[in-house]
């Protein structure tokens, strides 16, 4: 049923230029996506800078930063082994960036008129680039450490020769699909969650406009649902960041410890 008020949930994902008219033709536009990426970066830098003052007795802030770094070191050590520390910087960067972008995008900045919060990770260009970086690290480390022997990744140990002909192509395809599924996951989670919020937020307004006990009831139900989904969005944002970091560590483990 198309109501009089058009719902357009795709509008929030539009990238617009903030630079002004003469920059329209340039490929180096300063967009709202770039602005919110810089905001995410500023938040991360402020958080890490405030917590790394090397106090002898850590305060609350430093404890928070230490818990974060300790948690990710644990992830890399458990999946890659003692060599995992070398790959901690990228795993940490990916986790913290995706987490901060997801959470900042879910914050209700929209109550300030004119402020449009923009979830950076709701663009496949961003998450896809990050997954390609992960994939490039896997390929680089694999070929650097093992040379052409890296191709034995596609042949599990102890496979009969006849089965190798069948298994190697399957393993190859599943290996090549990894960057897509890795980048698609955080993107689609944020995309779907924000559409859901937008659609049910519209139901609140339409219910209020319709009036009557039915309209107000639907409005209240939709509002409760929006509140619930917002909480779920925070959880999903954290889980997606964790899954990205964990899968990156597992893929690097494949390349470091070849079988």
């Amino acid at each position, binding site marked *: 049923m*198309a109501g009089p008020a058009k*719902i357009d949930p*795709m509008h929030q994902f539009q990238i617009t230029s903030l630079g002004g008219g003469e920059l329209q033709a340039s490929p180096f536009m300063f967009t709202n996506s770039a602005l919110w990426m810089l905001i995410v970066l500023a938040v991360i830098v402020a958080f890490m800078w405030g917590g790394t003052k090397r106090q002898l007795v850590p305060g609350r802030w430093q404890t928070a930063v230490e818990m974060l770094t300790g948690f990710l070191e644990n992830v890399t050590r458990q999946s890659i082994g003692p060599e995992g520390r070398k790959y901690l910087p990228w795993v940490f960067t990916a986790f913290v960036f995706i987490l901060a972008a997801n959470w900042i995008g879910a914050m209700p900045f929209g109550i300030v008129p004119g402020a449009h919060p923009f979830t950076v990770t709701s663009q496949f260009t961003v998450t896809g680039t990050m997954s390609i970086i992960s994939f490039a690290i896997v390929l680089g480390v694999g070929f650097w450490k093992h040379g052409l022997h890296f191709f034995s990744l596609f042949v599990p140990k102890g496979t009969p020769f006849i089965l190798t002909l069948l298994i190697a192509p399957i393993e190859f395809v599943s290996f090549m699909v990894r960057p897509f599924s890795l980048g698609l*996951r955080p993107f*689609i989670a944020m995309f*779907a*969650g924000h*559409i859901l919020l937008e659609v049910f937020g519209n139901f609140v307004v339409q219910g209020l406009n319709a009036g009557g006990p039915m309209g107000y009831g639907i409005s209240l139900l939709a509002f409760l649902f929006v509140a619930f989904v917002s909480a779920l969005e925070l959880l999903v944002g954290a*889980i997606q960041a964790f*899954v990205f970091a964990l899968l990156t560590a597992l893929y690097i483990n494949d390349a470091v410890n070849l079988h």
Partner: protein
Amino acid sequence: MELASAQVIGAGIAAIGVGAAAAGVGFVFGSFLQGALRNPAAAGSQTGTLYIGFAAAELLGLMAFAVAMIILYAR
């Protein structure tokens, strides 16, 4: 058939995938709980695997939802 009604029907069919993903997520957590209650000592080390399974099942449901919304609103 008009485009608008075809869109609504298509979105409804696409939304079936969300329910299927709900079954998948329930199966993931249910199986984990079954295993965890049999051997609670090993459960803590497997939460990472649990969340990978959760994310894999959840992704497909979210994709179905996104497809439904794209059918409905994108033109």
